[in-house]
Structure formats: structure tokens, C-alpha cells
């Protein structure tokens, strides 16, 4: 069992490196699970280890990728792999039409072996999922697979024989289903390429660097479309969690100090002995919130996510107003309202319906902040907390520090959340240090950091 024990310990270490909290107890449990389940069935082992090592659903995708490296399906490449691209595409089309997962996995292995290899000298060679998919182009098989499935007469399993017109309605869903299968195949190719590279370069190394981190630890600035979509789906649950945390803070804050006057007054009924201290009660004020969001190019992913999150938390505040800017500024609160909250199209809708740019398309903080002070100065009062979201890259124009100073003077608090790493503040055209002198600036690169900051900074 020692080899297996090493593997499990390695797996746990790799997961820890990705921020999953695993103690020794869990590792021991995992080993006991492996003992109870045996090594014969890889999928059972996967489920067993997941049940013992993980504590939440968010880590599962990460776990699966790491598991594939430590308990690979096999070793080396397939023996009888044909190197013919067209033959591979034909077989893949069949597999997709039949929705045969096992065959798809085998084809992924063959494809990576046949099409994904690069380099020749040991040390610099490897396998690339990108290259494999670029050569194989599975997405272009859609029309062919659709015709194939229709030809068989009906649904995925082909069991709906003689249904004819009966499947007419469900057929409309076919395209999406095939797209999901192709997406699954792409995932398999990725996992296979990682496995082959790991054989060359060492498993631990690839597990740490080659596996995508969980979505809440991805840098906003480098997140791709899928990761942003995943983050958007996480908005509601995250908002619920933050709401409970805020409620707890509010409860604690409500325990006030002793109100001497009222304590003495009530002690009269007990002959001047203060039996029951009366606490000073805080007036329940729901704070107001103003968000200023840079929605230009690179920062837009971060801004959109934060806007959605704050909108989801809107019942915690008496008033939330959201402003977006690139080099001009416009109010977008209405675009975020309930019923219209289609999170996917938010960015596009803001760009379409609000006036955000003047003569050029790059962001200008000085101009936008000045416009805010001028047109919406009344939105900020002594009860308002202001969040500015952006990288503070002014494209060499005037940062307009007086406007920020004025903002900081009028608002209760002003926080600046910057999605750039702290060590890049002040490089190039970044005016971050200048702004940071006037208002509190926080580094906010990932969803995890953001939720920590929101829980700590939001007024209660």
C-alpha cells in the first residue's frame, strides 16, 4: 500500500497548493477509503477520495483535474494510434453522435498522441491541447453530427424508434446537446495532454502549475470567458453568504455601551439601585452606497462582477447607485434592476445604453471623476460609502486629484478597489499611488479577495 499512500499524500499536497484546506485526518481517511474501495475501479476511487478530501462543491473541478494526474487512466500513449487526421475526425463524429463517453476518451488519447506532440529534443518536447484541438477542429463537426443523429431517427440513445414527428420539439435542443458533447471532448483532450506532459516533466510540477485554479482564485484581469461566466453564476450564493456575515456584524455592532442617563432613570423604581443596566441603542441606519466603475476593456470583467454582487446585496442598503465610466460617466443603476438582471448581457447593455465615451475609447479617470463631481455631486452625502473600481490607469491624462479629495471629504468613506497586483501600482501610466494617498486603496485581484474585502469594508 505504500505506493498508493505516496500517491494520496502527493494528491493532498497538490490540492493544498491550490488552497484547498486538507488536514492529516482527511488524508488518513482518504487512505482508508482507498483501502475499502480497492483500486480496481478508478471512478469509484475518484468519488471516494473526493468525499473524504473535499469539503465543498466549488473544489470539485480542481480535484478532478489533479486526480487525473495522480491516478492516470494509463501510462504512455495508445499503441495502435493512426496518425490520420481525417480518420480520427470520422470516428469522433460517430462517437459524438452516439454520445459514447468511453470512445470519446479513447479518441482524445489518440488525438493528443497523434496531433498534439511538439518539439523533438527531450526536455523541450511535450504535448499541447491547444495544438491538438486546432488541428482536429471538433467544433466543425456540428453539422455532420446533427445530420447523423437525425438520420438515426431521434434522440441521443437512439431508443426513440418510430417516433418521427414526436421528437420534433426536442430536436430543437439537439444543437446545444451536441455542443455540450464537443465541450466535454475538449475537456478530455486537455486532461489527456496534461497527463502526457506530467509523465515527462514530473507530476507535482504540472499539478501545481498546469491545473486551472478554482474560479474564485483566478485573477480578474486574466480570466477567460468561461471563468467569468462561472463567477457570474457564483454571484447569488456569494451574496447570500455575505448577507449573513453582514447581518452578524450588524448584530455585534448593535450591542452598545451603557446609557448612563437611562440607567439611572430606571434605577429609581428599584430605590436607586441600578439593577438593570440600559444599553445605548444604535439607531438603525441603512447605509447608502455609491459605486463608480471603470468598465473599459481589461477591467470590465472585474467591474461587472462587482456590480452584480452589490446589486444582489441591494436589500442590505437603503440606496445603491451605480455609475459606469470609460472617459465619460453615466448612471447605470436602472440597468442593474431586478427582472432586467440578465447577467450575461450586462456589459453589452451598459455599453449600448449609457454614454461612456467622448471622442476616444480609452479610459480617463480625471475626466470621469470630474464629471461625477459636477453632475452627480448630490449623490454623495455624509451617510454614503463610495467604492471606486478600477486600475487607475489614466492613459497619461490628468488624474484630477482635487475631485477625489472633494469626494473623500464629502463621503463617509471612500474605498478604491484595484484589480492590479500591488507591485504594479505606479508603473507606466498608473496613477494608483497618487490616488492611494487620498483614499484607501485595496488590492482586489480575485473573487476571494473581493468577498473578503466586501465583508470587511461594507458599512453596517
Amino acid at each position, binding site marked *: 500500500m505504500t505506493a498508493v499512500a505516496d500517491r494520496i499524500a502527493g494528491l493532498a499536497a497538490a490540492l493544498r497548493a491550490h488552497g484547498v484546506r486538507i488536514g492529516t*485526518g482527511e488524508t488518513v*481517511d482518504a487512505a482508508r477509503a482507498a483501502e475499502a474501495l480497492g483500486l480496481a475501479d478508478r471512478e*469509484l476511487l475518484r468519488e471516494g477520495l473526493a468525499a473524504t478530501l473535499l*469539503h465543498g462543491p466549488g473544489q470539485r473541478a480542481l480535484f478532478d483535474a489533479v486526480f487525473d494526474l495522480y491516478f492516470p487512466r494509463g501510462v504512455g500513449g495508445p499503441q495502435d494510434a493512426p496518425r490520420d487526421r481525417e480518420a480520427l475526425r470520422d470516428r469522433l463524429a460517430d462517437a459524438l453522435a452516439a454520445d459514447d463517453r468511453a470512445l470519446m476518451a479513447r479518441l482524445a488519447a489518440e488525438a493528443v498522441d497523434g496531433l498534439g506532440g511538439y518539439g523533438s529534443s527531450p526536455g523541450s518536447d511535450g504535448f499541447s491541447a491547444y495544438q491538438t484541438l486546432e488541428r482536429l477542429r471538433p467544433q466543425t463537426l456540428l453539422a455532420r453530427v446533427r445530420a447523423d443523429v437525425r438520420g438515426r431517427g431521434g434522440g441521443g440513445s437512439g431508443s426513440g424508434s418510430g417516433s418521427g414527428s414526436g421528437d420534433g420539439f426536442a430536436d*430543437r435542443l439537439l444543437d*446545444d446537446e451536441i455542443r455540450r458533447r464537443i465541450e466535454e471532448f475538449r475537456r478530455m483532450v486537455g486532461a489527456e495532454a496534461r497527463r502526457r506532459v506530467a509523465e515527462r516533466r514530473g507530476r507535482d510540477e504540472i499539478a501545481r502549475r498546469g491545473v486551472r485554479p478554482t474560479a474564485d482564485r483566478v485573477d480578474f484581469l486574466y480570466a477567460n470567458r468561461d471563468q467569468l461566466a462561472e463567477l457570474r453564476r457564483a454571484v447569488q450564493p456569494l451574496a447570500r453568504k455575505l448577507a449573513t456575515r453582514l447581518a452578524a456584524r450588524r448584530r455585534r455592532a448593535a450591542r452598545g455601551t451603557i446609557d448612563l442617563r437611562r440607567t439611572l432613570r430606571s434605577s429609581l423604581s428599584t430605590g436607586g439601585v441600578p439593577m438593570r443596566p440600559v444599553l445605548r441603542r444604535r439607531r438603525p441606519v441603512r447605509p447608502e452606497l455609491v459605486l463608480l466603475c471603470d468598465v473599459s476593456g481589461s477591467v470590465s470583467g472585474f467591474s461587472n462582477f462587482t456590480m452584480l454582487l452589490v446589486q444582489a446585496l441591494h436589500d442590505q442598503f437603503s440606496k445603491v447607485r451605480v455609475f459606469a465610466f470609460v472617459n465619460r460617466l453615466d448612471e447605470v443603476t436602472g440597468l442593474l434592476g431586478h427582472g432586467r438582471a440578465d447577467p450575461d448581457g450586462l456589459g453589452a447593455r451598459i455599453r449600448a445604453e449609457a454614454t461612456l465615451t467622448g471622442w476616444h475609447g480609452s479610459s480617463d479617470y480625471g475626466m470621469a471623476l470630474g464629471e461625477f463631481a459636477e453632475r452627480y455631486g448630490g449623490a454623495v452625502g455624509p451617510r454614503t460609502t463610495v467604492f471606486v473600481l478600477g486600475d487607475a490607469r489614466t492613459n497619461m491624462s490628468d488624474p484630477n486629484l482635487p475631485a477625489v479629495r472633494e469626494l473623500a471629504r464629502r463621503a463617509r468613506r471612500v474605498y478604491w478597489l484595484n484589480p492590479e497586483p500591488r507591485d504594479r501600482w505606479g508603473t507606466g501610466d498608473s496613477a494608483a499611488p497618487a490616488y492611494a494617498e487620498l483614499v484607501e486603496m485595496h488590492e482586489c485581484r480575485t473573487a476571494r479577495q473581493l468577498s473578503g474585502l466586501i465583508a470587511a469594508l461594507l458599512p453596517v
Partner: protein
Amino acid sequence: MFTSVDDVSARLAETGYLASPAVATTVFLAARLGKPLLVEGPAGVGKTELAKAVAQVAGARLVRLQCYEGVDESRALYEWNHAKQLLRISAGRDESWDETRTDIFSEEFLLPRPLLTAIRGDEPTVLLIDETDKADVEMEGLLLEVLSDFQVTVPELGTVTATRRPFVVLTSNAGRELSEALRRRCLFLHIGFPEEELERRIVRLKVPGLGEALTESVVRVVGALRAMDLRKAPSVAETVDWARTLLALGAGTLDETVVRDTLGVILKHQDDIQKAAAKLDLDAL
């Protein structure tokens, strides 16, 4: 309790619970390692049903603790029967205080609540702690002692240790993040929406009257709806409800009119219905 993972699936299937490999594996491990099982997942995927099915399979008594906001020790663990204690005191007038005191804090005056009941029992027991996320954080602290050592301390009586460990299932809708300490003590199982094949089997089992072609269409449409990013994705319970509705309506096939008229059975928000209708081109026809 179980000999293998396949044994778990087969025996659960006999009671009408079709388990995915992940569910079967985790149940097997929970029984084998003697650890509590924490089940999370969206509403209506059969978290509570799982506990009931396990109890039925194992021939065990099901003890259920339903959590809600404000559930406390006296509802979850035990309580002294004050009324009866008063009666006892007034009945024994001539006794000395020492006699009375030892008497009124005895088993007879103890009202066991679910946690204590599950631990004291000699017969096999399945303890279901339902909707753990609804309970307060203080309650979690109470559960820690019970779940790690399977013992309960009653100051007047001493510590009660389980003679036979109950099979514990905790369910949660992730309404609140459960504490890390509680998660540590449990095996974690996330029940998501089932694979298409499994869902077809579930529909066939629960609504046997529905035709094969229609079953397949129903499952495909529900699968498509889940991929749509709705406010509340339809769950297995909704799929079964919808299948029952279609059966009651006598629908032979799934077409635009039928889907449009019955969409309310599977989707519970007006925005979702509109969005789904738009995506499925229902109004275009």
C-alpha cells in the same frame, strides 16, 4: 452494513432510490468508516430521500432532527420534564430533600430529543439532521460533540455514549456556509442534477405510465433548461412532477402548445418562464 458499492446501489434501488455511482460510493464509505455524511445540493434532488432509503435498506429506525432558525439544545438534545418533576415533588411530601433530588433527576423525568434518542438506542439507527444550514452557529457547536465522539453529556446523569453508532446524514442547501470544523468531521457528498440516463430511469420508475419516447423528450428538455442559467433550475422533483402532469393531461407527444402550457410546473419564476420560452422559440410558432 454493506458489502460493496454495488451492493449499496442494488439495495437502494430495491427501495425505489436510484443512486448515482458517487452517491453509492459515499454511502458505502460512510458506513464503512463510521463517519457522518454531509449531503449538499440544490433543492429537490433527493437529499432527504437518501437518508430515508438508507434507513429502509438497513432495517434501521429513522430519527429525524429538523433544523430551523432558533432550534436549541432543549429541542435537539434533551429536556427535563418540569411538570412531571413538580408533581413528583408535591406527591412525596414526607420525603427528605436528598431522596427527592436524586429521584427527580433520573431517567424517568428525562425527555430525550432526536440526538439523544439516536445515541441511546440499541437497535440500528439512521439519524437525519435535515437542513443543517438553517440552524444557528451555536447549534453547530453542539453537533460537534455528538458527531465526533457520538456521546452526549447530561450534567445530572453523566455522559451517555453510543453503544451502537448511528448512521448520520446531514443535509444542507448551502444557505449558509457551514463551519469548517463541522465539515471536517463529515464525508462530503454533493448531489447535483443526475446524468440523462439516470434521470430517464428515475422518471420510468416514478411515472411508469409515460411512454418511452415522451420520457426521453421530457428529460432532454429539462436538461436543456438546466443549461440555460435560470434563477432556479428545475430539479429531479420537478422533472417527475412534469412527467406526472403530462400523463394526467394525456399528452401523447411534446409539442409547443403542451410545453408552453405546462412550463409553470417546472419553472417557478416568471422571468425564468419568459427566458425559457424565448430560448425554446415557443412564441415564434
